Every structure is written in C-alpha cells, then in structure tokens.
C-alpha cells in the first residue's frame, strides 16, 4: 500500500499506446492498470517483466519497475526476482509465442508454485515478426508460416499449467468488462497464477483469417475452452516453503575450515605416486581420501584424483594418490611407485601404468587376479580364504592400504587408524579391517 492513492500506474506522457489500431494489447494494458489501481500496490514493490513480441512493449508504459528480457525466458527472470526478494509483486506479460518457446519454464513455475502472475496476451500468432503461427493458432488458421492452414492442435495454456498444479488459472478475452477484477485476483494469489487472455491481432490474424470478436468467442466454444477463474487452489508458495525448509540452517557456519593438525611424522623423503585400481561401489575413492587425510596428519602433502566411468555403480574405480614431503604441483602419475590391484574391473584402466612400472615398483594384487603382466615386484593379497569377515569386499581397500603402510612405513599406521575413525558409522569396521591386515602380515 502507498501513502497516497495512486490514480494510474501508466505514464500519461507516453500514451497513446504504440500498438496497431484495434490491437488487444492496449486493452489488456489498460485493464492491468485498472487492476493495479484497485490493489493500490506500492509501485516500488511491483516488477513488470515482459517477454519478446508486441506484448513486450507494454512494460514501458508502467510507472513501476520493469524488466524486459529474452524470448520465452520472462518467467525465469521473474522467478529469480521473486526468489531473491519475496516481498515484490512480480507480473509477467507474455504472448502466446512466449508460451511456446518458454513452455518448459511455465510448467516448472506452476509446479514450483512460485509467486508470480503470468498474463498471456494470446492472439494466436506472432505479431512482431510478421504473423507466423504459434502454439495457440486454431487448426486451419492461416498465418504467414501456415499458408495452407495450421495442422497442429491448439495448446490449452490454462490446462497445461493446471495439470502441473498451478494454484490459480483463468481464461477470458480482452473484451471482458470484469478483467481488472480477474487480474487483481490473480495478482493477489500468493502462488503461481496465470491468466490467458484471448484477443485480436488486427495487423495479421484478423485480416488473414477474416477473424473478428464473434469468431474469437465462438472458437472458444468450438474448442470447449471454458472461461472465468478455472482453478484456485492455494498451496504453499515456493519462497515461503523454501524459507521454512531451510530455517534451521541459518547461522550455522558455511563451508567451515577443517584444518588438519600434523600429529605424526613421516620419513618419506621423495614424492611417491600410487594407484588404487578397483571397482565401483567398493569404497575405493573414500578409502583413498582417508589415506590422504592420514598422510596430512603425518605432515605430508597429498593429491588424489579419481577416475570412473559416467555410470557410478558399475565399472572401474581408480584413485591416483601422490604423497610428498613437499608441495605437489602436477597431479598426474605416469609411472607409479606402488599400485594396488584389488578388483578385475580396475585392471584395464591401469594396464599402461602396469606396463610402465619397473623392478623398483611394487604391485599389491588380489591373488585371484594373478598372474599379471608387469616388471614390478608383485605381492599377492589373499582376502577370501583367510577370514569370513574379510570376504566383505568394501573393506579390501582398507586392508590393502594398511598392509602397504606396514610394509613401507610411508607414514605411521596410527595416523591411518585416526583417519579411518573419523566417521563414526564406519569407524569400527575400518579398524577391524586394519587389525585384519596386521594379522595377515604377521
């Protein structure tokens, strides 16, 4: 509400409208003004967002905020404005053309129930570009791009958003006397509203089809399209629902730092590249990052890059880990010092690295996958036969990493134990896996 009564939201200096004589756009614009006068909204709290086409010229007449965007995208700008500042009344003016190219946004705005009001200036063709057919051109309709008549069915804009749970839909014509009331009701609805207003394009659709007001009314009947307020089922508006759903998050620290205090020492004196070759779903990446954490706890620098196919739960999963006493730049590993080969899925992904490795390298390999072709020293790991518990494949990687630490002492096993205890739900089993590795190597 404003302090003083607003008599008009139109800039009188810019009138009369620039639309063609008899065009419905001027009528709708005037009726929208009447609706705003009725509602007495603060012009600073109103944003009129227009689409492309002749209807896109309408925002310039309003003494409110205005946003003129790209074709079909008006609903997205309106959504962004509303999301960012829910106290604003956001009104979209678009043509039937915008409903075609931006139909996806209309559907999703309705589903989302974002509190914007969409007013469709529906005249069955594209006025601005020369009278081409649109999604609402009646079948048989003659337009510049349907010279032999429209073959495609008329889109029911109200039904389209209604089946996607729009909280307010209405259909009428630009000739309707009560249009300001209908528009005011739409604007007052908290959620997503759409008003489909049928009107005449006197430059194209009218002359091309010898169309007139009575034909417009009769085509509504022929199609069985009802008029009036068709749906009004208020439900939680999106920005309100969002604010409620995130309310408990406010004030929590965002992206807090997780500093890692080095508590252990490592004797590693040079950069060491290792590759863990496994299968998806076998905790390769998460175990590798625990291993990295343990290395940082031991005052080392690390990098971990993961390789996996687009399918997350099948195929290979490979982690490349570098440990170094110094800062690491390049994170690639051409010739690894150590390779853990745990599952057959990983084998093809590391074949070239196995080929590159020489006698200095070590491969810890699941004994079931032996023999393999490499010059590196191969240490077999027998998981299955030793212990029924160790048959749980998702702990093999922890067992193998613990075994590696026992053999090489890159950093203390205690650092790894500390790292794997970080997440309570896995801590016990991770520690059991490490104990198992100790027994295995004893």
């Amino acid at each position: 509400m404003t302090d003083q009564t607003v008599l008009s939201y139109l800039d009188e200096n810019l009138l009369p409208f620039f639309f063609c004589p008899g065009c419905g756009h001027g009528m709708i614009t005037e009726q929208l003004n009447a609706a705003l006068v009725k509602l007495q909204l603060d012009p600073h709290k109103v944003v009129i967002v227009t689409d492309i086409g002749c209807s896109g010229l309408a925002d310039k007449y309003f003494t409110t905020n205005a946003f003129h965007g790209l074709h079909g995208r008006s609903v997205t700008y309106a959504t962004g404005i509303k999301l960012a500042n829910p106290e604003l009344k956001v009104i979209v003016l678009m043509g039937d053309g915008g409903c075609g190219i931006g139909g996806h946004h209309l559907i999703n705005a309705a589903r989302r129930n974002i509190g914007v009001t969409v007013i469709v200036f529906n005249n069955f063709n594209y006025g601005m570009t020369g009278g081409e057919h649109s999604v609402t051109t009646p079948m048989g309709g003659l337009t510049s791009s349907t010279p032999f008549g429209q073959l495609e069915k008329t889109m029911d804009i109200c039904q389209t958003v209604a089946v996607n749970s729009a909280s307010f839909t209405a259909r009428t014509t630009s000739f309707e006397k009560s249009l300001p009331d209908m528009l005011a009701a739409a604007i007052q609805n908290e959620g997503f509203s759409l008003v489909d207003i049928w009107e005449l394009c006197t430059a194209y659709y009218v002359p091309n089809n010898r169309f007139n007001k009575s034909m417009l009314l009769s085509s509504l009947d022929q199609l069985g399209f009802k008029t009036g307020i068709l749906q009004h089922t208020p439900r939680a508006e999106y920005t309100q629902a969002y604010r409620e759903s995130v309310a408990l998050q406010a004030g929590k620290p965002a992206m807090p730092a997780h500093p890692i205090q080095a508590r252990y020492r490592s004797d590693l004196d040079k950069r060491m590249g290792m590759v863990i070759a496994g299968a998806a779903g076998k905790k390769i990446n998460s175990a590798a990052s625990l291993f990295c954490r343990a290395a940082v706890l031991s005052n080392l620098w690390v990098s971990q890059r993961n390789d996996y196919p687009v399918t997350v739960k099948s195929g290979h999963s490979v982690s490349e880990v570098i440990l170094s006493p110094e800062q690491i730049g390049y994170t690639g590993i051409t010739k690894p010092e150590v390779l853990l080969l745990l599952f057959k899925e990983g084998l093809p992904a590391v074949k070239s690295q196995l080929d590159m490795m020489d006698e200095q390298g070590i491969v810890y390999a699941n004994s079931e996958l032996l023999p393999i072709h490499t010059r590196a020293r191969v240490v077999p790991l027998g998981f299955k036969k030793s212990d029924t518990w160790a048959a749980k494949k998702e702990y093999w990687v922890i067992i193998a990493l613990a075994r590696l630490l026992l053999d090489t002492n890159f950093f203390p096993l205690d650092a790894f134990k500390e790292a794997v205890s970080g997440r309570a739900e896995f801590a016990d089993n991770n520690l059991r896996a490490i104990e198992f590795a100790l027994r295995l190597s004893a």
Partner: protein
Amino acid sequence: MRELMTGAQAIVRGAIDAGCDFFAGYPITPATDILLYMLHELPKVSGTAIQAEDEIASMGFCIGAAMTGKRVLTATSGPGISLYSENIGLAIMGEVPMVIVDVQRMGPATGGATTVGQGDIQFLRWGTSGGYPVVVLSPTNAPDCYNLTCRAFDLAERFRIPVFLATDKEIALTLVTVEEDELIRFPVRKRQVVSQENEFIPYKTSPTNQVPLFSPFGGSHLLRFTTSTHDEYGQLTKNPAKVRLLNERLASKVEDSIDEISLVKSDLVDGADILIISYGVTSLAVAEAVQIARQAGKRVSCLAVQTLWPVPEKEIRAALHGVRKVIVPELNLGQYRLEVERLVRDGVEVLGVNRVDGELISPQEILHQGGLL
C-alpha cells in the same frame, strides 16, 4: 595449518567469503559438486540456492536475482555454457553482475563428461551474439580457485558484467593439500549504488565512470531493465548516436580497465630464450617442466595467465622480451596459442603442445615436444 580440499570446495568457500547469497544451477558433470555444496551452504548465510529446470532457467534466475542486488553465482560445464549463451548476452547488455563457473570437460557436445579439457577458452570469449568483451579468469590450482572466485565477484560487481571462472574437471575434483595462508580473502567491492535522495537514471554514466550506478528492484528508486538497445532511461531506442554510445561503452568499460583486470603469475629469468605460456591445470605441469629444464641448465621462463580475457597483452609482451621460442601447452587443439601468435615479433617460433584425449599433459611431454631436453 593445512587442509584437504578440492577446487570445487575452494570455489564454494571463495564465493561464500565473497558475499555470494544467490545460486541457481543445473546438474552437469563435473560441475555438480558446486551446485550441491551451494544448496547446502547458502541457507546458512541466509542466501538462496536452487536447482533450476535447465541451464537457461539457471541463468534467468541468477539475472533476476542479481538485479535485486544479490551477489550471484552459477556453475556448469561446456554443454551448459552453450545453453547459457543467450543470457550471457543479456547479462552483458543489461549490465548484470554475476560469476559463472565453467568446469570444463572434454568436448564437443556431450564429449567426455568425466574427462578433462580446456576447449571452452575461445567459446567463453565469443560464445554470445554481438561479440562484446567478457572477463574470464582461470585458476591454476585449488587455492587459486578460492582466490580468483573472490576476484571474480569483485570484478563482476565493479564493472557490472558477467565474469567467468574457467576451470576444469581436474582442478575442480582433485583433492589436494592446501596451506591455509594460500587462501587470500580478497576484499570484494560493493556495487556502486545511487543514493536515495538522488535521481536515478538506470543506465546513466559519467565521463569519469563508465559503469552506471545501481538501484535494485524493490529499492527506493524505480528500475527499468532491458536487454534491447536502450537509452539512459532503459527505454528502447534506435537513435544511432545513443546506440553507438551504449555499444561502445559496453566494450570500453572493460577494455579501458584492463590493468585492473589483468592477472598473471610470472616466473621469468633474465636472458631466457624460451617462454612457456599456460593457464589452468596445464600450468602445474609447466612449473614442474621448468624446474627440470632449469636444473639441466636451460634458461626458461614461464607465465601462467590467470586473466585469459581480456588478453593481458602488456604482461605477455613483457614476458616475450628477448625470447625466441614460445611453447603453449593446452588441452585443446591450440586455442590460446592464437592469442600468443598475434603478440610475438616476427621470427619467434610459437609451438603448441596439445592433447585432446582426456589425459593431462605431463611435464615430460612439455620438455620433449618443446625441445627442452
């Protein structure tokens, strides 16, 4: 103190520390991590984050939000940038501050979703109609992701432009150790706003400031925003004098401030006859190659370009001084090499080291192909 983080985490932390309070995005490998972190983290600072119905809507939401005064971020990969394209133009025309992260993957089209690439470099510069300049920053490692995200917000707010952060799968998703003091909290300037008492003309500029003062939707002034050629008032115009002024200013407000925008990391040695120019993830291999070459007695300089666009010509020319060979390693078929080639003197050899197979360029490849060993 040290931490473990990915480039994606560093970007999100940088954005939050830069005051970002709005995010909209659409899932795409390898940029999805940023979307997910933002959905979790922004509500903690009373911000809003949303997964939109597609990339076009993501940009639309961000643009609308930016014009209410929010500091906005979006993140995608190359195929998403294709869909962002029309709204990138709108953001340039309407003078919308925003930061757009491109976590590059291998292209074209869906290309390789989980493989690294640097193939969007020219696309980011020229990927919208009209050909107006944009700013593209490219971090060389995870701490740089943090630092350049802060810088990107600062430049976006200062010049009211879309600023890109061009990173890649490798930097965004590789977990690395970061020393906390490598993260530099660069102060982000506030968008210059018009005071409540003064008259507000949405696109009016002055001879001393080519960037129009701002007043948000819902503020004390009425804002008129348009993507069409407009006058100072934001009203559509075809008046040639006004159209020229607008179009020239959209370019000159960026180009005249190039010194403020240019960022490079240079490691130059006196009397070097070889210079390696790189950006992003490739710079890591270059640094290692240079170290090896210098140990072998070669005089090699290197320059990591952090501001890819506008091209930091002054800094590149300075680094080229006395050089007879330039090596430009890139994970594409030689896109930034084109920019280097136009800056070298006659007789200077410009050599590309390129890979488009989803693998990184190794230091050894640079040394061998560059004739440094």
